[in-house]
């Protein structure tokens, strides 16, 4: 999967280099970026520890909620097909605005939500839900992981205090590859 991602990435990069910025290229680039983000989203699950109370029961699936990013949801659904997280089935739930975050372990809030971002983040505040965003300054609004683009590459920042409030433990190994890590101090 990574290989595929990387290949796509490389393809995108070469395409970008060859052709001038065109609408088509822009669309392709965004699609690739979305795909990479979906893959990263799934991979985050391996570097985060959820408390037991985050799940309703032992049989409960690992649920990833997606708001305002349908393309990404579609990509993610493809990625998680047949895979498990913490030995649980993985379910992608496309969420509407105002929907409860109950039974969700990871929540991705797309850029499309814009101004409602703060609201949605507030609803998840204090819950054991790993919130991932792709908006500038999202961390300051209570997001735990925020995707950023650096040199046309998808990177991410991590805010530890928010995660700690949600009783989530983010692996130092993840932090090692994060662009920025915000700590309580």
């Amino acid at each position, binding site marked *: 999967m990574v290989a595929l991602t990387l290949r796509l990435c490389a393809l995108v990069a070469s395409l970008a280099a060859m052709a001038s910025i065109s609408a088509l290229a822009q669309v392709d680039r965004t699609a690739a970026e979305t795909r990479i983000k979906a893959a990263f989203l799934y991979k985050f699950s*391996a570097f985060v520890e959820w408390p037991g109370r985050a799940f309703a029961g032992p049989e409960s699936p690992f649920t990833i909620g997606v708001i305002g990013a349908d393309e990404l949801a579609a990509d993610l659904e493809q990625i998680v097909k047949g895979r498990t997280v913490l030995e649980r089935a993985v379910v992608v739930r496309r969420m509407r605005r105002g929907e409860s975050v109950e039974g969700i372990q990871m929540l991705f809030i797309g850029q499309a939500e814009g101004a409602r971002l703060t609201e949605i983040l507030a609803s998840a505040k204090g819950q054991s839900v790993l919130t991932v965003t792709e908006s500038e300054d999202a961390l300051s609004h209570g997001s735990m992981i925020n995707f950023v683009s650096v040199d046309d590459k998808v990177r991410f920042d991590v805010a530890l205090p928010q995660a700690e409030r949600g009783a989530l433990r983010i692996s130092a190994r993840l932090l090692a590859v994060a662009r920025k890590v915000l700590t309580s101090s």
Partner: protein
Amino acid sequence: MKRLIAGFSVRQKLLAVVLLTTLTALLVAIAVMVGFDLRNYRQSLISDMTTQADLLGRTTAPALTFDDSRVAQENLELLRYRPQIRAAAIYNARGKIFASYSNQDGRELPKLPEADGTRIEGNNLVLFKRIVDNREILGTVYLRADYELYDRLVGYLGIAVIVAALAMLVAYVLSRQLQHIITNPLLAIAEVAREVTEKRTFSLRAPKLSKDEIGMLAESFNTMLAEIERATRDLEASNEVLGREIAEHNRAEREIFRLNAELEQRVKERTAQLEYTNAELEAFCYSVSHDLRAPLRAIDGFGQALMEDFPKDVPQEAQRYLSRIRSSTQRMGQLIEDLLNLSRVSRSSLERGDADVSELARQVVNDLQIRDPQRKVDISVWDGMRANADSRLLQAALENLIGNAWKFSAKTDKPRIEIGSLSDDGRAVFYVRDNGAGFDMAYANKLFGAFQRLHSGNEYQGTGIGLATVQRIVHRHGGRIWADAKPGKGAAFYFTLESGGVENASRDMAEART
């Protein structure tokens, strides 16, 4: 090598043994230690590198996961704290180099990752290790580290040479200092042994300088010396005794020799005397016999003249006396004749030649038959009997033997006489056998004596000199004669005419006695 060592002195041998042993032990110890160390080094290097690769893989896994080669690069850069690691690289899952590190070594990184494992490449240890996270292969770690086996080996060899040289030096000095503990007692013994061999002074003794086997050797050597000394003394004493005995023996032998010579001389003298006396006696006998014949003939002649010339004047009675005188004189004449014959046999020289025994016997038989034609005697003489003998003497012997047979078979029904020969050990034995009166073997010893008669003159006429003559003839030929007989069953006389001498003569006596 062995021959070379054999030429060494004990000191040198000891030294060589000590040095060789030391060197061998040292080399074995060093070899084992080096081998062990190198094996350890290799194992620890491999395990170290494997750990390093594991660690690297683990720390790089998130970077690979989130495609952050910068972080991976940072991770690899940390390896500069381990100058031993010459190069490192992280390959992504597609086999592309994701991050790399090189310690100014100029060698290229492998284009593609290989399967998990370690291998030695000259001076380098090369390691590939898959990065697996969450059951997903994320990439591969490549490490290349210095593998200083040869450097180490060279270093060890240097140390080994120095240590060996030092140890040999110490061993040399120490063994030179200490070997006299072993060699001195040995050399002392050797010195004594040399002196004993050279001067043959067995009274020397080896000093016992230690209580070990060499001490025992010295003791045994001394005991041996004492033994030799004693044995030598004994030998000298016994030699002296023996010498005396030999001198005594020689003296006795000389005495015996002298006595023998004296005895021989005496025997010779006696023999000469005896021979002289014998010759004188025989001459006397001959002359007496010879001289006696003339008066005897006169007595006989005048007796005959008296009877013939005065037949009427001499009365009948006197006539009878006269005839008895005459027969007595004739008998005496015969006796004298026989004695002369015997004497002649002794005196005449022996002239050997090829004698035809059969022919001689036939002549004798013929004479007898002519003299007494009335007698019918069955006589057989074997053909072809020959002997190397004096024919004249042999004829005389045969005359006597055949004459005896003729005479003593006179009163037998069918008289038979056989003259033949048989072979005894290749030597001819002649015999004359008859079936006449025979005789008792108890008197056999008297047979050949002169004037010995087994039968009275009335029965058979004879002078008793015949067989004595025969024996003398046989003896003069060097042969021997013996008889076999039984009263009334005839007699057989056997004789040989060849060598025999004293032994045969004594056998004659022995046989004659039985």
